């Protein structure tokens, strides 16, 4: 969590009166959780940032409609869901047949999980990533940090594209299982 929860109600109240500095504090407090939440259904890093930024911009414009007596996060999360849906809708024409999968994933989204889960899962996954052996770490870096396509990675590593895809699938499953173990250990 990247903000002081104690001061948030005051910051939100000041933001509702038009104080942009106070709103910046609100953004700092919630942005990590919102980004993790979007990442559950949108894998593209730039799209994640774009959606979260849109959500904060929309929330600022709609602050007058926020009932200060109610919790802020569910209200913000509702705006985020609208922005995710809007993202998919606007991408539909451009993504053509990819939109079939987008729609299927969005129909029963993982994002129904409590918002805190996504942030905790991200934190757990980061710790698991630090333990990945060097060879696998290079593969993950090429794919997810440098955004190389599988074909290019395969040429670079002198492997078949299928072998690279399978390695990535196994790595993702191992990392997901590792994150789940860490979360369960923490909760128990």
């Amino acid at each position: 969590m990247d903000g002081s929860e104690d001061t948030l109600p005051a910051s939100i109240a000041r933001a509702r009166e038009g104080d942009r500095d106070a709103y910046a504090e609100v953004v700092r407090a919630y942005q990590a959780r919102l980004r993790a939440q979007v990442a559950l259904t949108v894998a593209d890093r730039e799209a994640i940032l774009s959606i979260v930024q849109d959500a904060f911009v929309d929330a600022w414009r709609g602050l007058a409609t926020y009932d200060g007596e109610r919790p802020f996060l569910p209200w913000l999360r509702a705006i985020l869901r609208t922005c995710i849906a809007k993202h998919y809708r606007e991408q539909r024409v451009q993504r053509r047949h990819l939109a079939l999968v987008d729609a299927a994933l969005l129909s029963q989204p993982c994002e129904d999980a409590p918002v805190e889960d996504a942030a905790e899962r991200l934190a757990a996954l980061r710790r698991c990533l630090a333990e990945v052996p060097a060879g696998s770490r290079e593969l993950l870096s090429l794919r997810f940090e440098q955004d190389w396509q599988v074909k290019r990675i395969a040429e670079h590593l002198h492997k078949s594209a299928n072998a690279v895809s399978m390695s990535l699938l196994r790595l993702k499953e191992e990392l997901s299982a590792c994150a789940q173990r860490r979360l369960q250990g923490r909760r128990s």
Partner: protein
Amino acid sequence: MNPGADDALAALIEGYLEGTIDEDGARTLAGLVQSGGAQARRIRDLVATAGLISLSYDPVTAVDMARSVDEHLTADAQYSDLLRSVSAAIVPRRSWAKTWIGLGALVAALLLVLVNLATYTIRTGPRASAAMVQKLEPAPATIAVLHGPLQPDRAIAAGERVTVPEGSAAVLIIDHEPTICTLDGADCILMHGSPGIILRLLHGGISAEVAHQPPGVHVTISTAQAVVTVIGTRFIISADAARTQLKVLQGLVAFRDRLGGTTAVAAGEAVASQALPASARPASTTVLPVAETWSPLFPGGALAAWTQQHGAWHSEQGTIVGEDRAGGPARILSTRSLGDFTMACRMRILRINWAEIQLLGYNVFVPVAPAQPGTWQYLVVNVRAGQVSATCNGQAVHVQPGLDLGVVRFGILSFYVRPGGRCEIRDAQFCENPDLPLPPR
């Protein structure tokens, strides 16, 4: 678990994530997701994990997001102000028309109203700047006119730097096309592209309204972190030393993050570049100078006109050296996009088998893979209209696709050293005048 089925599933998921899946594959994957059960949960979990891993590599900090949201809100407000000022400017014409109606010239008034309504529609629509452009059409020797509310119109020539103080705004009208940019506290340089215009935004914000350009002609706005290629649209872009943000209001814009990939940004969408690490931010706004004659790529043997993205780069008695002592890759990026140019240099790589010269914003790669690592190679790279050719010690080099975005005519130049390697560059020169012969070796 069926290994064959896993193979197919792995390929489908990676294809979906990178956007290369075909329609049959997409239908299959969508069907699996919709079928429910364990397989659907597995796919959802794999996609979610991919998103979280991707996010784990994101260097953006909480402060960055707060600032980008704040700048976005500021840019929105400034664009609204611009629209209000344009609307205000056309009110007197409507009143003038109404005066004629008041005189009772019914037929003439009807005609005038019809004409005036058409004018009004054009001026308040996407081409709102058309009338201002006609009024302020620049002289042929100039490529733009700067129009400030408190100053006379000023012609801007290619290569000229335009600085609008923070807190104030001016309108830049480019090349007698209906292309209008509002500079909000912006510091920028205007350059000729081939063909088109390049606006290098060093700092500040630009709200732009760009009419459809002729085929192959683009308006390009480049910053330290991103390159925005505009085909005909309305958008807001802002940049500082760390980050560039783009909000598209109408149309479609290609946004190329210098640290990442290219994104097509559609109307209503916003995108922000990855933040340059503090060590990689330019200490000044020095850009690689325009080279009409053969000029050094590293002026004075220094790196002021370059951005260090990965590893550590320095000069050793005129030799540029790049490596990451922690075993990672090393990459250095030019601070300016280049179009047509020729470069020549001597290059030596150590501890690894190959390095790359990356051109046109990572779109094309020239591999440097000597038979004997550690020996000096003489490289010549030629870029013309997006096509790249290269020689190494006089032998043709097979260039390779990088981002492979089709024909890209401008982009940054970078030197990439693969993990664990060291690269040394000497006598690096470049020239943007295609008529000059190569310099002596």
